[in-house]
């Protein structure tokens, strides 16, 4: 009778070695147990599947990355005729396509400019007030008052995350974005200073295209050479977290904004 060590039994279980015909009864019993545990584990995990919202988000990311520029061009019977007519078609196309292309090019520029402006707002928020005396600023500490101060200035309710869970509100600051006055505030989370800028633009208009899920909330991420950006839509605004921290860290105050919200006191 042939006894096998545990590691040899592993090889038999993985199909890397044949089971000896004269395997001793102790090893045979052990192998049966190993097979039973393997089968039970496989069965236990068989029902675990990625949640639908996660699947949708990742599929959207893949579509965004592999989008129209990588799709196969449709092949039609007109291809041969088109070749003969192509100079005329090309001239018409230049007129038809040129204008939208220019606007796309400018939109690329404008999102880059938007991200530069956001990074500048963050940089300005980080400066001590005496280095930046012209900036309208409200000190941190009282979330309701901070929210009220910003809401008054932009004419619509602006919310802030309730401090706690390792997050502090440091100051509210008014800033200029695309020549308009916008609200922003500075939070400190786990040693990272993060600006939250409150905008009416959609994340896509800011070039924040990559969809990400954080704690079950869909957000839009982007990165420039200076900062990372993460945006979430909430109560008609886009709240953009700006900072040098990773997207995972930027998500923390945004998740807190969505789950522990402070709004101005209604008087």
């Amino acid at each position, binding site marked *: 009778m042939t006894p096998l060590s*545990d*590691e040899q*039994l*592993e*090889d038999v279980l*993985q199909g*890397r070695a044949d089971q000896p015909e004269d395997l001793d009864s102790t090893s045979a*019993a052990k192998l*049966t*147990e*190993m097979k*039973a*545990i*393997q*089968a*039970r*584990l*496989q*069965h*236990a*995990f068989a*029902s*675990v*599947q*990625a*949640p639908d919202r*996660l*699947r949708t*988000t*990742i*599929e959207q*990311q*893949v579509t965004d*990355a*592999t989008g129209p520029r*990588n*799709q196969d061009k449709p092949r039609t019977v007109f291809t041969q005729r088109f070749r003969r007519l192509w100079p005329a078609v090309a001239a018409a196309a230049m007129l038809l396509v040129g204008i939208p292309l220019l606007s796309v090019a400018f939109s690329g520029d404008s999102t880059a400019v938007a991200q530069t402006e956001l990074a500048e707002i963050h940089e300005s928020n980080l400066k001590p007030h005496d280095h930046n005396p012209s900036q309208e600023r409200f000190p941190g500490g009282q979330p309701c008052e901070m929210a009220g101060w910003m809401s008054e200035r932009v004419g619509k309710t602006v919310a802030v995350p309730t401090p706690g869970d390792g997050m502090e509100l440091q100051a509210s600051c008014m800033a200029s974005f695309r020549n308009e006055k916008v609200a922003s505030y500075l939070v400190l989370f786990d040693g990272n200073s993060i600006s939250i800028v409150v905008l009416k633009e959609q994340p896509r208009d800011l070039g924040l295209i*990559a969809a*990400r*899920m*954080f*704690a*079950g909330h869909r957000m839009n991420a982007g990165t420039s050479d200076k900062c990372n950006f993460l945006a979430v839509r909430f109560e008609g605004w886009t709240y953009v977290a700006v900072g040098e921290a*990773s997207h*995972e860290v930027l998500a923390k105050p945004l998740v807190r904004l969505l789950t522990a919200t402070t709004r101005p006191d209604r008087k």
Partner: protein
Amino acid sequence: MADVKDFQKIAMPHLDSVFRAALAKTRNRTTAEDLTQTTFAKALQRFDTYREGSNCKAWLMRILHNTWIDQLRHRKVVGPEVPVEEELIEQDEPVEPTSWSDASDMLENFSDEQVIRALGELPEDQRMTLFLIDVEGLSQEEVAEITDVPVGTVKSRTSRARSALKERLHEHAIDLGFMGRE
């Protein structure tokens, strides 16, 4: 080298496997979702480094493993690395083996959740090795590459993990009244 437009066809079918692995690693659904998403974002970015014809599931699992290590380092919760030999000596304590008269019958008493929870109680290296081998059906060589250890270590970890899981389930079976105390 793979073309990014094949990502949907080659990598996406492994989404459930990656999520299961993330869940086994993190033991938390929300963290597992974030880890899965980051893994796919990185995989998409680096898809040109994927060798066509190789095991895409194993390639994704390696990205998942490295991403998780990076995240733990970022949170500064990774303990000091223990050399393999030292680890083997420390864990080589003799354990009185448990014997089951009918393993399959006994295991049927547990719910899927209880089995997954018992696996989650094992140390991470054992847990992931056993998961990748038994649940995801990866080869010992693939797991060695993913976890960055020699094939011999994968073998011994699998064996130790299986014994440890059996012991856990045995204890739970006694606690739950499926088995009497000896």
